[in-house]
């Protein structure tokens, strides 16, 4: 428990390095919701579609193999499928309307002092905090 912040810092460093690589080599902003959204709704075509498919493949496959090798793959997600469906829907609609999520607005936006990134992050963290407090402590759903 004492050491977990170090793993957080190291893992965060990897996440930021991934974003730096994608920016400096491919010239793209590493935003997970944009990358996935463009694949799901078909708005990404040609080279961009292939690039995004490759990114998504890496994002899926590398943790899959690492979790298999080291056995730390556990999400502890809620078994309440209504909660998971409602949450997924909100995340899908919300990130596409706001044009970004934790990686795009959070990591890539804040690091270039983008006002939109900072404002989005304040609102999704605020809404997330209120939601957890409400549904966990007052309603006892999660």
């Amino acid at each position: 428990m004492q050491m977990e912040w170090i793993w957080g810092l190291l893992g965060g460093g990897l996440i930021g390095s991934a974003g730096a690589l994608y920016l400096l080599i491919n010239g793209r902003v590493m935003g997970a919701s944009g990358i996935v959204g463009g694949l799901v709704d078909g708005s990404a075509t040609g080279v961009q579609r292939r690039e995004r498919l490759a990114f998504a493949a890496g994002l899926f496959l590398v943790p899959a193999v690492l979790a298999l090798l080291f056995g730390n793959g556990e999400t502890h997600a809620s078994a309440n499928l209504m909660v998971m469906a409602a949450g997924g829907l909100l995340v899908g609609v919300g990130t596409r309307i706001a044009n970004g999520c934790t990686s795009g607005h959070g990591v890539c936006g804040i690091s270039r002092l983008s006002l939109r990134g900072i404002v989005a992050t304040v609102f999704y963290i605020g809404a997330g905090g209120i939601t957890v407090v409400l549904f966990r402590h007052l309603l006892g759903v999660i």
Partner: protein
Amino acid sequence: MRGLFAFLAGGTFGAGLLLSGMTDTRKVQGWLDIFGDWDPTLAFVMGGAILPMAVAWQFTRRRRPVLGGQFPPAPEPRLGRSLVTGSVMFGMGWGLTGLCPGPSIASASFGGISGLVFLLAMGTGMILAPMAKARLDALPAAA
């Protein structure tokens, strides 16, 4: 080449999410839950990720991406209703489940049925989003 480096970036991103514990919904919800047994990890992950990224943005000045093309344009200064509304919706879903788009894909192989239901719903939401945005844009502007 673009595909190879995109795969490497996606893989490094996924490895970072797994290593930092961001594929564990308890750590994410534990950070959001300021009235519970507060878990500070997410703040370290964010800080650790923003540092190399801030350095990378400095390197984009007067240069071009290694594989050609242009760097992303300067961020749009306008905030707008959809940014705020969308972020609030995203935050609610994130708080409810402890998952956001990156970790939901990174954990797809071991997230079980809960993870798959989340992914399916998120994909559906992404397809429905343009409709929701059109409705939002049609609302009269706030005074």
